[in-house]
Structures are given as C-alpha cells and as structure tokens.
C-alpha cells in the first residue's frame, strides 16, 4: 500500500473530501509476468462496449463475450458494472484487472456517499478510476468507460484508455471491436437524442462491431441511467437483437 498522489478534481467538492484523498491509498498490484507474455492465457475480454449521453442521461452498451484466445470462456458476460446506483462502467481489457479496479472504486464511492451524505458526481468516480489506472499503468491492462447520471449535472461519459489518461466525451467507444465502428459512430452520432434514438444508435453500432469482430457475438446488454435510476435492457442474437428489451 502506498500513498496516492493528490489530483485536482474539477468536480471535487469539500475540504473534507480533500483531506481524505491525501490519505487515499492506492494498491500497487504485484507484477504478474504471465500477464504481458501470452504464454498463459489470461482472461481477456475482447470487448465491444460504449456509452453515450442523450437528452435524459446516459446509455451504456456492451456485448457479452469473454475469450481466452479463441475459446469463448463466457458467452453471457455482464460487462456493465455498477459502481454506484447511477454510475456504471464498461470494462474492457483484462477481465481480472478491470474487475479488481471496479471493486475498489465501488468501495470508495460507497464510503463517499456515507461520509458526505450525498451521491458522488460522475467526475469523482472517473477521477478515482484514473488514480488507480494511472498509478498502476505498468501492471494493468484496463480500458474503462465511465458513464453516469447526477441530479445536478445530468449525464456524463468519461473514457480511460490504456495509459490512464482521462477524457470526457459526449460518447465513447472501446474494446477491440470498436475499431470497426469509428466510421459508423462518427456518421450517425447526434447530440441530445431521445431515449429511443439513443438505444437505436448504441444497438446499431454494437451490431456492426459484433458482425465484423470475430471475437464477438452473444447478447447485447444495455443500461439506461436517468433521473429515474438504472434500467437494464437485453437483446438476443437469435431474435435479431429486437428483444426482449426491458420486458
């Protein structure tokens, strides 16, 4: 355990939080030699995942495949991870790494809510993710998209690629299959879409990525985060991704 460095958060709040962060402990994960050579197959999530802002909040979407090499270790993975009630994240890269990081952030956000008596903003969550990903950049293989809704700020999306940098965007795509949909997303993206249009955009983009990326398939999972809370959606491949939706 080492002391974490203090980062200035644009969305940081009270003095109390600052002093807490000074003692913020970052866990340096022990170097794992098997992780970077491909001798042992690590559970890599060959992800296609994305998050978008829309008029009412944010929508996260992901496929459901985790592979070890060409073997599909899990065909119904849930890559949309809750770190707080209205802040979720899409995990791509090493499944083990991203699960560990998400668990840590989830713990700290719970502590924040208890100590501050209010919900953390999405920026706070994104900052926590960044602290961990950046400080441990040599050992981690994690690409994370954070998306959430906050009553004061509406919906926001942040992207943390491999190096541990933090980028706020109106929509973010990530994972290996995302390379196939940069053009698609760039062409079809519109700011402030309705929920239905937003769902259509995410579904269309993920379908294209699934179609081309051999490491893909499975179901499409989505989570819609608005002032009403979190709503899960599911679309199955053998129903042409039309349903069951939110049933």
């Amino acid at each position, binding site marked *: 355990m080492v002391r974490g460095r203090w980062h200035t958060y644009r969305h940081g709040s009270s003095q109390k939080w600052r002093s807490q962060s000074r003692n913020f402990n970052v866990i340096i994960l022990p170097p794992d030699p098997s992780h970077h050579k491909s001798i042992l197959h690590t559970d890599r999530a060959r992800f296609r995942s994305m998050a978008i802002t829309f008029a009412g909040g944010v929508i996260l979407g992901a496929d459901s495949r985790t592979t070890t090499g060409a073997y*599909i270790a899990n065909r119904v993975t849930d890559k949309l991870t809750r770190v707080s009630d209205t802040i979720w994240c899409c995990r791509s890269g090493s499944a083990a790494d991203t699960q560990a990081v998400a668990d840590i952030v989830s713990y700290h956000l719970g502590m924040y809510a208890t100590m501050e008596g209010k919900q953390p903003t999405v920026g706070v969550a994104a900052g926590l993710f960044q602290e961990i990903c950046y400080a441990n950049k040599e050992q981690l293989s994690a690409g994370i998209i954070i998306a959430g809704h906050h009553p004061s700020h509406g919906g926001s999306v942040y992207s943390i690629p491999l190096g541990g940098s933090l980028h706020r965007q109106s929509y973010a795509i990530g994972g290996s299959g995302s390379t196939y949909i940069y053009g698609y997303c760039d062409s079809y993206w519109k700011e402030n879409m309705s929920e239905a249009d937003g769902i259509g955009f995410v579904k269309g983009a993920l379908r294209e990525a699934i179609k081309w990326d051999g490491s893909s398939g499975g179901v499409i*999972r989505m989570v819609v985060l608005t002032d009403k809370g979190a709503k899960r959606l599911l679309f199955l491949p053998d129903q042409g991704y039309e349903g069951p939706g939110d049933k």
Partner: protein
Amino acid sequence: MNHLPQAWGRPRNAILGAYNPSILQPSGPKAHTTSPIVTGTSVLAVKFKDGVVIAADNLASYGSLARFTDVKRLRTFNRRTVVGFGGDVSDMQYLDRLLLSLDIEENYGSSGHDLNALNLHTYLAKVMYKRRSDINPLWNQLLVAGLDGLDQPFLSSVDLLGTTFSSPTLATGFGAHLAQPLLRKVVDDEAKVGSVTREQATNAVRECMKVLFYRDARSLDKYSIAVITKDGVELKEDEELENQSWAFAEMIKGYGTQTV
C-alpha cells in the same frame, strides 16, 4: 497440437533445450508458408449406415476479423466425395485447383472408373506429406468424406504434416475438443456405424455446430452441410443455426456480488 515447425518431431523444450531458430533462416527470396493468414475453423463429420454427414461454417477469418462470410469450405469432387477444409484459405484454393486438374486428367483415358473417396484421400495425403517434407506445408487439416471402393462409408483426415487417421467421427480445430465428445456419444465405435440413421447423424452435427458457435470465437452461425450416400452428394450451403439458447442471459448480473 503445436503445428509450428519448431515443434515437429522433437521432445519438449524441457528435455532438449529451446529450439535453435537459426536453422530456419531462409536462404534466398523463396517464400515458405510459415503461418496461415486467412483461415477457416472447424470441420465436422460423422459416418452413418448409408454414408457420411459433413459440415463446416461459411467464415474465413483474418486473425480475429470475420472477414469473409460467404466462403464454402466443403468442396465436392467427382460429384461423389466431399472434402472439408480447415486452416489457410489460400492453400484450400490451391488444393481445389489441384483436385480440379486431377479430375480432368483422370477423365482422359478413363476406363469408366472414377476416383473414390479412399483414392482421393490417399492422393491428398501424399501431396500434404510431400509439401511438409519440403518445409513448405499446405496449412490445412482436411476431412475427406464419401464412399470407398466397396460403397462403404469412408471418412478420414489428413493434415499439414501429412498425418492421416480415420474414425467414425472426426472434427478439426476447435471441433476436435468440443464436438468430438458429443459426436462420439452418437457413434463411438466402427461397429456401431451400421445402426446410426441419417437423422441421428445430421442432428448430432447440427447440435455440434451450435455448440461451436457458442464457444469458438472464430465461428459463424451460417454453415454448409453435406450428406454423401451412394445416390450422390446432397450439399446445402446456406444453413442457419436454429434454437439457440441465449434467453438465460437475463439471469446473469455482474460478475460476483452485483445484484442489479
């Protein structure tokens, strides 16, 4: 199996030390196939009492990219034998041309006897072994399915090393790990082939194609399936998987403690 040249015919590295790659230096501009580029995945086949069922999906992958989705990896020969190709697609196309020229040659001065599946398999085995011995393999594993000289069901494999083997059920690639156990439940012994019906064999193959689509990250849900009997070859090239199981995904939430 480790198909890379440095592993052929030698004991494990722990016994002999690491392979010395300086032996493999190419001398001159000749290009030898060292790794497959555009590849096809599994091929499966099962013998039944009147013939053989063989199937392969319609995908050619470029690494992890699902590049070509209309590739027919089951090729008929002589209207009586079907060869299923897994592995490099350019080598598959070369073999296709080779078999075509063989067919043309055989039709000259033929005494009315066509090459049957057994003959074709022997020919292919010799071609594959010759290429292997030139350290320039055709990077494929082939299943040859049809009838032999006595009109009995014939099914045999030949691969990039020239290794051949035969069995009532065969599968290449991922199929060897995932599909073979399922196919062997239907017919696990040559003696049982005589009691397997066409429907049993076809259903087993279709179920295995579904399992492979679930678990092989380089597979497709569209496939070709052929049934060879003494009446000829019945080849269907645009089959789609039916009755997939995905609805249970709704019950999966998170990865450990998450409940929403």
